């Protein structure tokens, strides 16, 4: 199994956490930020990023604003009120998931 498949299910809480920390971000910025934080370990593809952002927007967890940045428009995403609440839940779920993985991988240490 490659790394991307392992990270796939965690992409949603990762992005939501990023937005909670940085306020508003645009697509390319998110891919670069994740790459920077993980020191190149995690590379988010466009095919995974945008559908996820569009889904979260449709679910009312993200809101969009566009800004003219000179010669083009840029779409910025930020968390809605509901999105902020959901981020806490998603992070908590991820932590629980990681604990479960620890139990499976190192049964004696827990």
């Amino acid at each position, binding site marked *: 199994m490659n790394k991307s498949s392992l990270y796939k299910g965690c992409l949603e809480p990762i992005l939501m956490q990023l937005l909670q920390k940085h306020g508003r971000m645009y697509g390319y910025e998110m891919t670069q930020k994740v790459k920077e934080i993980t020191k190149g370990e995690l590379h988010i593809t*466009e095919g995974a990023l945008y559908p996820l952002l*569009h889904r979260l927007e449709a679910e009312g967890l993200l809101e969009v604003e566009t800004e003219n940045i000179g010669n083009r428009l840029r779409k910025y995403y930020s968390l809605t009120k509901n999105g902020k609440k959901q981020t806490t839940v998603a992070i908590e779920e991820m932590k629980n998931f990681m604990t479960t993985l620890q139990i499976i991988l190192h049964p004696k240490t827990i």
Partner: protein
Amino acid sequence: MKLRQEQINYLFSYCSEQGIIHYDVQIEMVDHFTEWIELNWEKQPDANFMNMIEQAKKAIPDNELKDIITQKEKFLKKELTGHYHQEILSFFTVPKIALSVLLVAIFYAIPWDPEKDITQHFSIFILITNFYTLYLVLWRGKNIIVKNKDEKMFPLLQYEKLIWLGKVVFISHSCFFLIFYSSFFFDFKTTNQYLIYTIKTMLPFMIISIVSWYYVQVKINKKIRELYPTAFANN
């Protein structure tokens, strides 16, 4: 290295060729490509624009672009329904809820004259509704529905879905009024209590639904215009 306008236009054409024909999806992809090319071009200043395009195409393959548009279309209906719910909730403020309840009570209280035509019992309410709707659309909404339709320069996925939904609602409202105003052409009197109470119950809801629908249409049209100002002329 910053891309020039004609290079950005080339990226818009490339997105169209890949099946991303809607401006609201294109702007996001073009911004992504532009940012990618600008940052990577700095690392290889000897490369030309077409070299960078080729590299960008490899980094962001066609199938991923196609996936993005397929997924966007799937979520857009949900997104639009979400906007609609959000706006409709903002329409129903406490005074408007009170007015709606009052309207239902008034309709029930109207004495029924079997000699009078059905339309005559409610014509004043229908007239007020029509005037209020015109006020909402033309005055408060600054004719944004018609303006957006006339001034739109690029296809917008979000707008197309809104128009489709708008047509469905417009046809259902028109059918209702057509039946209601059919008494202009046919004698439409009744003493049937069941029919009378059905009309008395249905009509206030229809009035509220028409007014709220146009309110929502104005709001969403304004939002689309605000989100994609460069997609419309006269901005």
